């Protein structure tokens, strides 16, 4: 087998050195009744050629050749070649968690830079080395708010990504954390009045997302004030991190739970992505996840180490702030490389292009008489359209034109069966936006 570096005679020599007669001898500590008598029933073994052929076959059964207008927490941005080149270097790809700092300075410094970039983007003071994804980052942020405030109730806007809210519910259920939801107002932003009524002195956190799941930007400073008035924290989720190139960062938030997939990671059918928790310095000891800190060696040379580990499971066990161990380090590295390439100007331009393309798409779609924008609030690269009939049925027609149409919101909100979420990024050519508009017009003008 090509992955195994031993010849039969080397195996024999090693067995002899051990004093074993056969390989079977090595497994006698497993009771005989549980030792398998025959080979497993598995496909393979496959050569490299066959493996590639197998996955190419599967790739051909997917969406190739279709133009996709989906976002909703997973964004198709251009991925720079350098990013993938760097993360495939064996020294990054095949190294472990940097618990031995003397021979892990590369990973450690890269994490320190990642933490800095995330702080700069979010307007927060500290950021961790990554969480599994945005959804688990949000759930952990809620648990963190519970620890910080000693309160056991969170109020979450229904405009937060529905799957993020589901993950929050799963985590909250056994942590003694009560989750209450509030709806949205006409502009597509969280209903501030309902929120104000729901928040009280038992509330640990108010949880919103910006841009929210309906594509609309929330008014973070006002929401922070509302939360603070009741002694609650404001937790802000960000699923489209490119927005932070042009949208004001949630600096007033107490905790930001972000998904940074947009920075150089492919959609990859939903993962692996990279979650982030960023917060205020004063809460750092309640933060989950790994942190890298700067220090010096005995000769005064700058170096980096994993630090504040007394929050973590391998030291604190049942008293840890979280059970997270393995995180998404390589994805965080990809995000760092990507952001360094984008740089100050590139990030701004990228965000501006997304904004402009989405505006153009919205205007094109609104030219169809039976289509209108569902919410008037400001949006970044996603917006909701209301169609005269079920989005699901319209999408079935669009598929015939090789277009994956707006995300049917009825799957998440029963009251929104005629609403669809459209996403446009810098990778969507104008011609495809125009083709979507033309196809949609034709479908809607054809009597049912």
């Amino acid at each position: 087998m090509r992955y195994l570096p031993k010849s039969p005679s080397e195996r024999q020599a090693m067995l002899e050195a051990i004093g074993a007669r056969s390989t079977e001898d090595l497994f006698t500590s497993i009771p005989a009744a549980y030792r398998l008598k025959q080979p497993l029933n598995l496909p393979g073994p496959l050569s490299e050629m066959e493996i590639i052929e197998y996955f190419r076959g599967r790739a051909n059964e997917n969406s190739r050749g279709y133009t996709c207008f989906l976002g909703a927490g997973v964004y198709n941005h251009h991925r720079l070649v350098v990013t993938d080149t760097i993360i495939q270097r064996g020294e990054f790809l095949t190294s472990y968690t940097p618990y031995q700092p003397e021979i892990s300075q590369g990973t450690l410094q890269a994490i320190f830079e990642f933490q800095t970039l995330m702080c700069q983007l979010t307007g927060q003071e500290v950021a961790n080395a990554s969480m599994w994804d945005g959804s688990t980052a949000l759930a952990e942020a809620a648990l963190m708010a519970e620890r910080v405030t000693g309160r056991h109730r969170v109020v979450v806007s229904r405009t937060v990504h529905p799957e993020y809210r589901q993950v929050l519910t799963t985590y909250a259920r056994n942590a003694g954390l009560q989750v209450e939801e509030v709806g949205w107002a006409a502009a597509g932003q969280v209903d501030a009045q309902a929120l104000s009524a729901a928040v009280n002195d038992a509330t640990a956190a108010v949880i919103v997302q910006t841009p929210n799941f309906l594509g609309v930007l929330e008014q973070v400073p006002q929401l922070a004030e509302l939360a603070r008035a009741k002694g609650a924290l404001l937790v802000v989720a960000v699923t489209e991190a490119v927005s932070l190139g042009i949208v004001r960062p949630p600096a007033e938030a107490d905790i930001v739970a972000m998904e940074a997939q947009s920075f150089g990671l492919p959609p990859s059918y939903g993962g692996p992505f990279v979650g982030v928790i960023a917060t205020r310095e004063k809460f750092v000891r309640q933060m989950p996840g790994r942190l890298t800190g700067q220090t010096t060696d005995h000769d005064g040379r700058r170096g980096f180490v994993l630090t504040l580990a007394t929050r973590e499971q391998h030291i604190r066990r049942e008293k840890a702030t979280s059970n997270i161990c393995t995180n998404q380090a390589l994805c965080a590295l990809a995000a760092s490389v990507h952001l360094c390439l984008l740089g100050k100007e590139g990030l701004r331009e990228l965000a501006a292009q997304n904004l402009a393309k989405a505006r153009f798409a919205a205007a094109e779609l609104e030219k169809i008489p039976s289509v209108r924008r569902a919410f008037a609030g400001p949006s970044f690269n996603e917006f909701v359209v209301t169609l005269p009939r079920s989005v699901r049925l319209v999408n079935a027609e669009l598929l015939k034109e090789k277009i994956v149409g707006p995300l049917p919101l009825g799957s998440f909100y029963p009251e929104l069966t005629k609403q669809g979420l459209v996403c446009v990024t810098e990778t969507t050519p104008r011609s495809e936006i125009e083709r979507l508009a033309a196809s949609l017009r034709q479908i809607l003008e054809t009597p049912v």
Partner: protein
Amino acid sequence: MTDRIKKAGRHVNQSEGLIFEKSAPGKRGMELPPLDVPAVDARQALGAAQVRDAVDGFPEVSEIEVIRHFTRLSTWNYAIDLGMYPLGSCTMKYNPRVNEYVARLDGIATEHPYQPAELSQGCLKILETLQNCLLEITGMDAITLEPASGAQGELTGMLLIRACLESRGNARKKVLIPDSAHGTNPATAVIAGYQVENIRSDAQGQIDVARLKEIVNDDVAALMVTNPSTVGVFEQRIAEAAEILHAKGALLYMDGANMNALAGVARPGDFGVDVMHLNLHKTFSTPHGGGGPGAGPVMVKKILEPFLPVPVLARKADGSLALDTNRPKSIGRVRAFCGNFGVLVRALAYTLAYGPGIRQATEDAVLNANYIRKRLEAHYELPYKLPSLHEVVFSDVRQKKHGVSTIDIAKRLIDYGFHPYTTAFPLIVSGALMIEPTESESKEECDLFIDAMRSIAEEAATNSELVKTAPHSTRVGRLDEVTAARKPILRWRPRATGEAAD
């Protein structure tokens, strides 16, 4: 002294500051194509209050500087691609490159989780095939691929146990965890709403079955056990432990972190395990990437299937695959979308490469561990003498007499060209040296490691200062971790305005 060090030599590596320190206004690392739609005034479009200024302190560097920056950093890391990485419990095996290749294919990496099922049959077939392979390897009945890591797999498993017991009328209060367990186990049990009761291992480092029998009662939800245990030994009475638990209506959770000792040889489903997770970034070769991403699939027995997290892979009447979220008894969702799909792709590529031959990998892993054990046991103390499987745990008691501890030996290994083994774990071994070579090491590499460890044992006796002040060959020496924690510097900050420039 240097003639003892055969594996490593000195070579120059590049110095490099932080990327922020290389930044200069006007430099850039990428360009976009011209905008093909009318430009928009952000202040008008979003409202002035919603628009930010350029990100303060953000790097401005060219493409070549980014390449050099990260390439230089990379050369400061040790990696499996450079040599043996004998971290016990971490299973640092070769990460096949074809796995990277297929995960990046157009039509695999490009797929959106919300695209219609009819356009996702390839992705769903990958999930189905991997599910079937993992069920065959573990001997379990049903599976979820959702969890993003081993720890999230543990949490999912504990939530499944809770849901199952709740459905029987009593979720119970406690989870029993041996003192040899990974730290994630107790941390997880708490998030699942359970109290942790630690149970002491017996004199041989095994589950104390007699003690277990005494303490399992109607308050106990489950026992979380790692098998083989963290001392690398099969829990010989695990089936008996399962019977004790089952007789009292409790369940057996197995941490599958050490599955590299069992794949193709024995199946947890056959020895009484009710729930378990796998770490695909260990046994199934997906790269650790400096700390992740991983994936932590959870396998269960039939009784727990109704509670699996959503979505669950389902076959429709027309024979096509779909993701089913309509599962009334489900514990809910543990992660958005479909798990760490790209990691799952790599794990399947690994499994297909071996097929039933995965047993050979297990045999080689166990062979390597036993070979190292045999050839080092005259030099290091072996606290538990039961037969080893995939890893061997020594203690530093002999070297302690010279004032040399496991961490010193570990740091000295760096000078010999190796990554250290795992130190200070498991907790039941004082001064542990936990060594897991995996199947990826040749006899030659194992021999070099053995020579290095013997040489260090000798140095500990004859020149302990050399060991205690190691490493001597790295860019930085031992770092001041106390100050790092006491006065945390967790990010770079731009020089304050008005401060004098250099």
